[in-house]
């Protein structure tokens, strides 16, 4: 057991921190959000140069070969700088997915394009009316005699869906919405006839899309993994995304904590810095404790997300998302409260961290959703056994 980072991990963290410090100021970020695309091609090239786009890709495929801990380090830094680039979908989810279950051809063709920065991907795992349920899939995929698949249905809140060069979608090859079996994964080229979308901004400075698929024809090589057995893969990819988002949330929460503490020391009222007031001191301590507990959970999720034991992975990831959902809410609300009117402004970065933390709770399942999932995972484990109470004597 140890809590130390390797030399390589420290180097990775350092290079990401330095790059973002140089390129991703709050103003620079706002400028990126104001562009049509909503992300920065230059930054993306920078990520490619740093090797970040191949983070989950094994060294045998010229990637970094990172796991949960490496992703955590990168994402925490992204959180601190409020990075809006399509990294989660392209790298953490899609590249990880391809490296895990892609065919040799898929890996050989796609991974280099992702790593050199010329291809971005987005994942559509949720559908209208399905809330956070990854098994609630009504989109259908039917295989024609010529081997082609025909997809029909719609995907909801596909983050960065409109800037993606390639989509990954889940669809049903059998069964009905809610069934665990019968889900398959496909690559869909957004340029195919029948693919339409509505792009919209999200309140946290990102972009998302509602995607509809109408008789979209894709070739047989577009199937990812085994037909009908996609759900465990979707769940694994979602868990990786969650672990990454937990780290990103910790980055945001830490920034909020630092900003708030700074404000308590500098803002004067009643002739003293407001940090002199005990009620605010204690609130600030609670804020700190929420940050520390959240950090611990992001670490736990990072360490367990690669576990071959799916129950252990699910338990840790859902526990982390639940705790961070709640603690993120607390930290965000108190950061605004302790900044007073300034906390309400769009001008100060505080509100932008608040919005991102709030958004993270709604991505891949909120605190309540993961409390359910955590309990379900716990029920898969045997109950603790204690010696049975001895027989009860009754004295009359």
């Amino acid at each position, binding site marked *: 057991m140890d809590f130390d980072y390797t030399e390589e991990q420290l180097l990775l963290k350092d290079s990401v921190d330095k790059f973002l410090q140089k390129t991703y100021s709050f103003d620079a970020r706002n400028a990126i959000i104001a562009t049509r695309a909503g992300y920065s091609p230059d930054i993306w090239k920078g990520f490619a140069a740093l090797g970040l786009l191949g983070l989950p890709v094994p060294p045998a495929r010229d990637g970094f070969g990172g796991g949960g801990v490496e992703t955590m380090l990168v994402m925490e830094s992204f959180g601190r700088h409020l990075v809006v680039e399509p990294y989660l979908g392209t790298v953490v989810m899609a590249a990880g997915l391809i490296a895990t279950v892609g065919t040799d051809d898929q890996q050989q063709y796609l991974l280099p394009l992702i790593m050199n920065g010329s291809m971005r991907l987005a994942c559509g795992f949720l559908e209208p009316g399905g809330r956070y349920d990854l098994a609630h899939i009504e989109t259908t995929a039917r295989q024609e005699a010529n081997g082609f698949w025909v997809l029909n249905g719609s995907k909801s809140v596909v983050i960065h869906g409109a800037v993606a060069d390639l989509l990954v979608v889940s669809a049903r090859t059998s069964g009905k919405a809610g069934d665990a079996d019968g889900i398959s994964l496909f690559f869909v080229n957004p340029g195919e006839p029948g693919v339409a979308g509505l792009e919209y901004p999200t309140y946290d400075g990102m972009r998302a899309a509602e995607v509809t698929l109408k008789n979209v024809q894709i070739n047989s090589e577009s199937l990812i993994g085994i037909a009908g057995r996609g759900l465990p893969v979707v769940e694994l990819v979602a868990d990786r995304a969650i672990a990454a988002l937990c780290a990103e949330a910790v980055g945001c929460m830490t920034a909020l904590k630092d900003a708030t503490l700074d404000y308590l020391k500098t803002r004067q009222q009643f002739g003293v810095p407001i940090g002199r007031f005990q009620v605010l001191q204690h609130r600030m*301590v609670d804020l700190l404790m929420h940050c520390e507990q959240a950090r*611990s959970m992001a670490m*736990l999720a990072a360490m367990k997300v690669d576990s071959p034991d799916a129950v252990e992975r699910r338990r840790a990831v859902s526990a982390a998302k*639940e705790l961070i959902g709640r603690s993120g809410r607390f930290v965000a609300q108190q950061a605004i409260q302790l900044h007073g009117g300034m906390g309400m402004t769009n001008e100060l970065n505080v509100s932008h961290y608040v919005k991102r933390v709030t958004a993270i709770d709604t991505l891949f399942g909120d605190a309540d959703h993961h*409390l359910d999932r955590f309990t379900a995972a*716990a029920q898969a484990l045997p109950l*603790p056994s204690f010696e049975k109470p001895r027989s009860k004597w009754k004295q009359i």
Partner: protein
Amino acid sequence: MNLDYTEAELAFRDEVRGFVRANLPQEISRKVIEHKRLGKDDFVVWQKLLHQRGWIAPGWPVADGGTGWNPVERHIFEEECAAAGAPPIMAFGVYMVGPVLIAFGNEQQQQRYLPRILSSDDWWCQGYSEPGSGSDLASLKTRAVRKGDHYIVNGQKTWTTLAQYADMMFCLVRTASEGKKQEGISFLLIDMHSPGVTVRPIITLDGEHEVNEVWLENVEVPVENLVGEEGRGWTYAKFLLSHERTNIAGVSRSKRELAYLKHIAAQEKAGGRPLIDNTRFSDKIARVEIELMALAITNLRVLAADRQGKPPGPEASILKIKGTEIQQAITELMMEAVGPVALAHLPDSWGDHWLGERVGPEYAGPLAARYFNYRKVTIYGGSNEIQRNIIAQGILGL
């Protein structure tokens, strides 16, 4: 970064587990797990067994009787002992006065007291709090006046835990009233069998006798019982408070209690189904469990920082606050779990070998009392509000 134990750590765990399994009397572990009343002997028997094995004081320097374990090994030891239902080691001797004597006591004091702390031949109690001095401890008034080669001590200590068993008390007394109030405090060792010492029970809301008032009336304490220098007692007391932090969070014990809570909730029925399947209740269990998972990691992070030689700091206060909140939440849920039978107050049935009447299942008996008793954990050892003050100053610089 890795949570898995190494081969060596696994071997160590097996060694500890083997020892605990072979030596911890089942009668004692059952009382601990089932929240039965523990007597002095229950603590002493287990502590003597640990002493014979050389494991009673893991945190002490090896030369003084410590084990030389690293923080991970100490953590493993805690986990194994707690999981098996071993009684906690009484803190006053091993964790509190022992380290102070090692750091600040003279050789004579060390030779006289340390071996008897290790062997549990002396039972120690802590005489800090007074009726007028709780959180503001430095305002304490118990006076020690030097007269020849004795101090004459007069005053009243209160909340003194298990003083009814104690042979010795380490005590903060005022030896000077001018200057800063902290600078007039000295650290004295008082023989509880001395004339002028009176121990009076305070019955707490659970009906139990755990704390006492200790009256000191013209008690003669030999000057050789002064630890370190006169007027430096406050420094030693602060050292003591920051010293022991491996176990301050109580994570290992809370894990066992949480498992027991699930065990109870699986047997209780609500609407004909196991309570543990009732969403409203299982949500509460799950939330505590998640908080505890996080605290376990936070605790290990603090230990890891320890290993890198960083000095103990106010992070210990985070562990104390979170740890006690979780302990209280678990006792509360256990009481809730058994429903109305929690009302039955039959203290005699909390002893061992009770063959008389019970109401409800055996595990239900002590749960309400335990819930009430555990309100103490956020008050003593520096209340959680005081801990927040410490964090605000020590970590946040407010």
